[in-house]
């Protein structure tokens, strides 16, 4: 949505606000009028993912790659990063492959700055996690790979340098999702890295159909490997604390991971989706270690006791009861999981409307986000089957699949895919998903990375018909990303809460800012930030439809 249209829409919102307030506890705009426009071509993004597909069907080929919204040059406009495959023990590209960094031109177009930024990389990339790990005010990149991961430190001068070795976070093997989270509340961002199976080209199992065609094997055939947790030493180095923290004791086949606080104790927990294995719920024991409670919590298996093919994950308080709920995207016929938090470290899987819509889908990117600015988190699923031959043996399941959008109706979700834009009628080999307001118009746009095809940049048109307040949280004592901050706001009769989670989705990284939807309210009457450090900041009567920078313990800095 262009900002020029905003004034007219604000007038409209004002005129209709009286009616809305009288009839609805929550302001619910006509979600059908919020659509997403595919502007990829217009934006100048030409990069295409190369999955290195081979006749041998090596498993890493089909699971990448990720994407990120990242403001790498601190100009207040989100730039875009894509992860590509690359050289590995089973793949030597004819010409070197590279990741892609696109700088935002602030007019809906982007310029490829990958080479000058120094983030081409030729490893077999998987995902990306963005954060200012060293607190220097610039966003850094951690790129996971099949092979060796890379930590790119942002120099602040439009470029990055590879500091992996110095930092000690190379984590060889097959890493998938990474999460920057301050697990011990020491004000520094630590790093959790999901590991998939033990794999190299000699371990590739032959899975073939009757005609001898090889297809991507079910991960059941491979051995699980333990994920890693790196503690930030605060001096540019990290210490692998996987064993001491209790993470290494649980080898998995991990894809998506999200950091959230499932028991409201102020310590960030980790929920990790595993493929063909039980999911892990690592509950943080006051920053000392983690206790894996997935089984007792009811999030490890299906209700029938079967491990599912967990891929993408996310966490949010979707029903506004103050407790973080969890979501896992699984493979076709397994149903996706919506775990409602029972407030006692147990969950109940209640997919309801989502179950019917996802029966035949395989989900990767997943995100709770308030796309219509009515204050509650809606849900987007990015899908695609990992087996490119699936249609030959299953008439119901497709390799490329549509995205699915759900509107939060309070306690439940309503499928609004058909009314969310023409792009939702198309099929993709979807993998990564990042949300962010790349055009700074106050509604969340989408970035989708597809396997072996072009990515998608989808502009939100209509989400900012409802009013909003954008927050850029700047920590002084807490971790630089303010991960774990709890935000509460009131705007008229509307009340919202949000925990600043980290990770989630699949191989991707979102806009670090928070957009608080306030419906038709004309100001945010009360705003409370509970920082991970314990600091509580309260502000009143904030004007809407703008971004504000809030500094921990100090309040608003400057208005963008």
């Amino acid at each position, binding site marked *: 949505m262009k900002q020029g249209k905003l004034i007219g829409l604000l007038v409209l919102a004002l005129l209709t606000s009286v009616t809305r307030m009288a009839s609805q506890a929550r302001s619910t705009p006509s979600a059908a009028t919020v659509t997403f426009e595919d502007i990829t071509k217009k934006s100048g993004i030409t990069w295409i993912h190369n999955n290195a597909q081979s006749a041998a069907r090596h498993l890493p080929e089909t699971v990448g790659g990720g994407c990120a919204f990242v403001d790498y040059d601190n100009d207040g406009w989100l730039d875009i990063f894509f992860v590509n495959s690359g050289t590995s023990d089973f793949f030597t590209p004819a010409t070197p492959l590279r990741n892609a960094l696109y700088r935002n031109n602030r007019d809906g177009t982007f310029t490829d700055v990958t080479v000058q930024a120094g983030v081409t990389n030729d490893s077999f990339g998987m995902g990306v996690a963005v954060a200012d790990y060293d607190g220097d005010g610039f966003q850094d990149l951690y790129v996971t790979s099949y092979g060796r991961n890379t930590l790119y430190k942002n120099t602040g001068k439009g470029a990055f340098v590879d500091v992996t070795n110095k930092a000690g976070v190379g984590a060889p093997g097959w890493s998938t999702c990474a999460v920057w989270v301050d697990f011990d509340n020491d004000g520094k961002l630590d790093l959790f890295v999901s590991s998939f199976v033990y794999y190299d080209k000699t371990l590739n*199992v*032959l*899975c*073939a*159909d*009757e005609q001898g065609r090889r*297809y991507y*094997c*079910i991960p059941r*055939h491979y051995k699980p490997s333990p994920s890693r947790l790196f503690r930030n030493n605060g001096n540019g180095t990290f210490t692998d604390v996987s064993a001491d923290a209790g993470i290494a004791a649980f080898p998995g086949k991990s894809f998506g991971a999200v950091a959230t606080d499932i028991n409201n104790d102020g310590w960030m927990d980790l929920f990790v989706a595993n493929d063909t294995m039980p999911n892990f719920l690592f509950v943080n024991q006051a920053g000392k270690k983690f206790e894996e*409670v997935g*089984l*007792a919590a*009811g999030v490890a*298996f299906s*209700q*029938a*006791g*079967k491990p599912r093919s967990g891929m993408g994950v996310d966490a949010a308080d979707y029903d506004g009861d103050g407790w973080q709920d969890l979501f896992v995207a699984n493979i076709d*016929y397994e*149903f996706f999981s919506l775990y*409602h938090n029972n407030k*006692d470290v*147990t969950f*109940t899987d*209640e*997919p*309801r*409307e*989502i*179950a*019917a*819509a996802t*029966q035949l889908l395989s989900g990767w990117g997943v995100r709770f986000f308030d796309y219509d600015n009515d204050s509650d988190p809606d849900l987007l699923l990015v899908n695609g089957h990992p087996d490119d031959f699936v249609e030959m*043996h299953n008439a*119901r399941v497709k390799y490329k699949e549509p995205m699915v959008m759900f509107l939060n109706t309070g306690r439940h979700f309503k499928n609004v895919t058909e009314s969310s834009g023409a792009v939702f009628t198309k099929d993709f080999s979807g993998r990564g998903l990042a949300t962010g307001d790349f055009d700074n118009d106050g509604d969340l746009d989408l970035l989708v990375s597809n396997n072996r095809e072009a990515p998608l940049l989808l502009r939100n048109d209509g989400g900012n018909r409802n009013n909003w307040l954008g927050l850029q949280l700047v920590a002084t004592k807490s971790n630089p990303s303010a991960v774990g901050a709890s935000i509460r706001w009131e705007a008229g009769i509307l009340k919202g809460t949000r925990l600043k989670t980290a990770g989630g989705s699949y191989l991707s990284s979102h806009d670090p800012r928070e957009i608080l939807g306030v419906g038709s309210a004309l100001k945010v009457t009360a705003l409370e930030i509970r920082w991970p450090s314990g600091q509580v900041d309260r502000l009143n009567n904030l004007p809407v439809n703008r971004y504000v920078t809030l500094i921990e313990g100090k309040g608003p800095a400057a208005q963008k």
Partner: protein
Amino acid sequence: MIAGKYYHLIAIWLVLAPGQTVVVPRTRTVVVAQTNTDLINRLETAATLIRDDKLVEAERQLTIILKSNANQPDALNLLGAVRAKQRRLDDAERLFSRAVTANSSLISARMNLVQVYLIRGKPDNAISELLEVLRLDPTNAEAFDKLHPLLLSQKRGDEFIKLIEQAKTSRAVSSSLLISLGDIYLQKRNAAKAEENFRLALDQQSDNADAILGLAQVAQLTGDRATASAYLDRAKKSVVNSAGTLHRFAIVAWEADRYEEANLALTQAIKLNPKDPTFYVALGNTWLKKPDLVEAEQAFRRALELQSDNPQAQMYLGYTLFLQGKYPEARQQLEKSLLKQPNVPQTFYYLGLISQEEGHDQSAIELFSRTLQLESSFADIHFALGRSYLTLKNYTRAQEELELAVKLKPDDPKAHYQLAVLYARLKDPQRSQQHMQIMQRLEEAAKSPKKPTP
């Protein structure tokens, strides 16, 4: 009684309503006295006229006879046939009855009476007449053929058994009757007698698919899966293009967990007889097993197109919709099914599962309890109850129900899983782990890879 000469009368067709044709079969014989030439001639003439549909003239001939002898049984029988052709069934029944009263051995009148009873929906009267015919003429094949489906339809299996077993001592019984007899013994779970009769049927026709399938069912009844499977393979070579036999094959294949073959047989049966909702219900169940919920849903919906109030189709459609997460319509179909079949435990069970998925565990418990009232040995119910109690954090009841579930169904990994969750929550990691290990062992044992294994 007139004796010595036999008149084979024509088949009499009654058209009861447009498109509905019912046959009054050939009256077997009319016995007349050779000494009364005039009477014989008139009866023969009347029979010919009836055959030629010249009913008024036939009636005139018969009236002449009856004027001189109002209870002449053959004339009464033929006049009854005239009335039947005129669709005057009350009169026809009365005349056939008078004929039988006048001559209790007049089998043709009894057979005509049977036909009228059948047309008029009086199966018990028809059975009585047929039994009397067989008492008079134990070799009457037509009476046999009519009686056995009637007895079966009236759930008078014991009488059928008695009838056929008696017949077996005095005459050759057709293979179809022997198979029917075997089927009844199967229903009574008398494997030995069932096998005996299927084998007798096979002695008559060595490639009789129904008999072979019957033997497969006997093997299934006795738990001999290997033998059942062998018979099923043998039947495959003999299954003819009969929808009924294909349906039977599908049922046996289903029991043998050979769902693909069951599916194919039912698909073929439906090609031969696309109007039988039972076939679609069975087909839907094979799709459920594959599983292909979309195809299953289509099959059950097709059954309901053919018979909109088929409670089985409604129940299974409801279940299929439940599996797809389409809870509101699933509930609607199950509730419709209950209207016609209010005491089917499965229906309450499925409704309970929907409540459970919708987060209404208290309602689910009530529905599961209703299921138990109807079917106390329904093992899955205890699992379902345990799961709901677990959700409601009533761990004592959850433990009771889940332990009972694994006792009744020790090979069910689901219950072991729920027990593992329960004990994990009760901080008993050892027992939790035990159940997890059992569950994993069972899962491994049951695992059949969807794709070829490497």
